[in-house]
């Protein structure tokens, strides 16, 4: 009864278009012809010399921006493959010197590193599943315009964007609930990100109501409509939100640092944090400890690479989802 291809959303481009459509701001009649306008306007009148000079300078500035952003990454990558002698002498910039992979072998042979990596995967998956379940339910409820008390329910969520209890009461609460040393200390206090909630809510609001009405006439109840009709049609937004949460939990370190008391429960970000911390404290000491600092710096570079790699690897694929999500959230939130 529901013809699938008619409304199935899968490509990011479609999401982007759908997001665009939801924009409340009045758009010029040009609408989607923005690229066309550009091409047209640049030819007439002919660009002045000042503008041509500006374009050259602009290209230089933006190239410098790209270089400034990338340089630190490439430098750390180069250091991770370099031997400590060259790092020590400050001779490693963009290309590894004294190429070797012994530091990688060293870090990867540490059982604690793999243990913490597994923990990160486990925490990320659990927390993301919990967060998606709770966020989806609430976003769906909030998207129903006829619902009585809807404004209050929205207000309850939005208020927490501007005021929160602060770290001490949260810490006291999590300890009080005996959630320390469990995944719940990470998953539950962050189960709903209000920004994500609002993005999902506006996605649901933009779905054509006819499908749900038809399903209701066919005798489906709310649960089944959500599960069988709404969710299958929301794959794009679900994918986006899952990525938002997964990246957030993968990157988080403070909750694990705060609530995990034994190193077998640390996430890999806490593992890296402890390296960062030891580098700081060593370099605070005498310069005589120079060699030690360098070994730590070497290991630090490798750990940075290994922690960031999953994100860097999926980054090209997730980037546009993030962009469309942020744009939608901004328009509605």
């Amino acid at each position, binding site marked *: 009864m529901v013809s699938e291809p008619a409304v199935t959303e899968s490509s990011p481009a479609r999401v982007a278009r759908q997001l665009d459509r939801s924009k409340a701001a009045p758009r010029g009649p040009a609408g989607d012809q923005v690229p066309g*306008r550009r091409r047209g306007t640049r030819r007439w009148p002919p660009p002045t010399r000042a503008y041509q000079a500006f374009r050259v300078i602009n290209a230089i500035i933006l190239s410098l921006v790209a270089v400034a952003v990338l340089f630190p990454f490439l430098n750390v990558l180069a250091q991770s493959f370099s031997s400590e002698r060259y790092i020590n002498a400050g001779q490693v910039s963009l290309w590894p010197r004294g190429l070797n992979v012994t530091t990688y072998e060293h870090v990867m042979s540490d059982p604690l590193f793999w243990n913490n990596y597994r923990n990160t995967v486990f925490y990320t998956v659990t927390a993301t599943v919990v967060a998606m379940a709770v966020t989806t339910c609430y976003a769906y409820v909030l998207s129903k315009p006829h619902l009585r008390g809807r404004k209050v329910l929205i207000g309850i969520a939005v208020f927490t964007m501007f*005021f929160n209890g602060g770290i*001490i009461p949260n810490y006291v609460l999590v300890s009080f609930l005996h959630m320390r040393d469990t995944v719940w200390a990470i998953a539950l206090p962050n189960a709903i990100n209000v920004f994500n909630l609002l993005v999902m809510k506006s996605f649901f609001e933009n779905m054509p109501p006819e499908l749900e009405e038809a399903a209701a006439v066919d005798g489906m109840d709310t649960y089944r409509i959500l599960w069988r009709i709404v969710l299958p049609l929301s794959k794009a937004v679900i994918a986006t939100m899952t990525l938002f949460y997964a990246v957030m939990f993968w990157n988080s370190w403070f909750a694990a640092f705060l609530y995990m008391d034994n190193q077998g429960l640390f996430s890999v970000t806490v593992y890296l944090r402890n390296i960062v911390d030891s580098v700081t404290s060593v370099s605070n000491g005498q310069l005589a400890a120079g060699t030690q600092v360098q070994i730590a710096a070497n290991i630090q570079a490798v750990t940075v690479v290994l922690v960031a790699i999953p994100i860097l690897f999926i980054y090209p694929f997730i980037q546009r989802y993030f962009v469309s999500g942020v744009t939608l959230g901004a328009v509605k939130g």
Partner: protein
Amino acid sequence: MGRQRRAGVRRSWRVAARRDWRLYSLAIAPLLFFAVFRYLPMVGNVIAFRQYLPGGPLFGDQWVGFYYFDQLIHDPNFWQVFENTLILGALSLLFGFPAPIILALLLNEVISRGAKRFVQSVSYLPHFLSTVVVAAIMMQGLATNGIVNQALGWAGHAPITFLNDPGWFRSAYVSSEIWQYAGFGTILYLAALTTVDSQLYEAARIDGASRWRQTWHITLPGIRPTMIVVLILNIGTFMAVGFEKILLIYNPLTYPTGDVISTYLYRVGIVSGSFSYAAAIGLFESVIGLTLVFAANTFARRVLGAGLW
């Protein structure tokens, strides 16, 4: 009449409950979440007025009135970190707020779509990294033999211990914030730029307005609502300046400039166990933060004609 209306309200609630009880049931878990993990901690701030002992009752043992606020007012360390917070917050706002706008305007002038997309993709990247990764990259890059000091060396400058020098801490922090967030911040502005009416540009061109004047009189007013929203949101995080990052990159040497309210209360509360005093500091911080947001919003609504709510 009042009673009648109340009866009517009650009846319509009953109708709503009967019709939508399944929808309401879906809200139970999320509401529990908000109650327990968002609103209960707000209430939990009462321990700022009560004596709390670790392991004791959630809301502390006994009332002590303004004892901890009195302590706060007479704590020279607090005023030091308060000042640091204001300076660091102001610097972050001063440089962090215009950076994405300028970058977005520059990107908007790029004609080659490929080049534009490349710069965008690259500049968004740091936003996706963990704060720990960013801190580690800073450690590497700003070390005495890191790339920044290498560049200084080529220029014939002696190496600087950026992260151990209180005089450099603020610059290092603010630069890293711009490095991390300026690119991603352009998304909102670039989206807003596409909504500026192209007819305005055509009209301006016919009137002989230069590109610069077009930018000043059409583009900037066009993205003003976005700027206001972002500014208010930035002001909202003013007091809580980069807690996680500062916690990672500061050290006792840089406390004089780097220690802020949130890191101080973390050390007072969680490291030293003075929960009540730390809660008092936290409450002080959030009340100022909330006041700032409301003030900014009211100002934006009255003077600029557009606010966040």
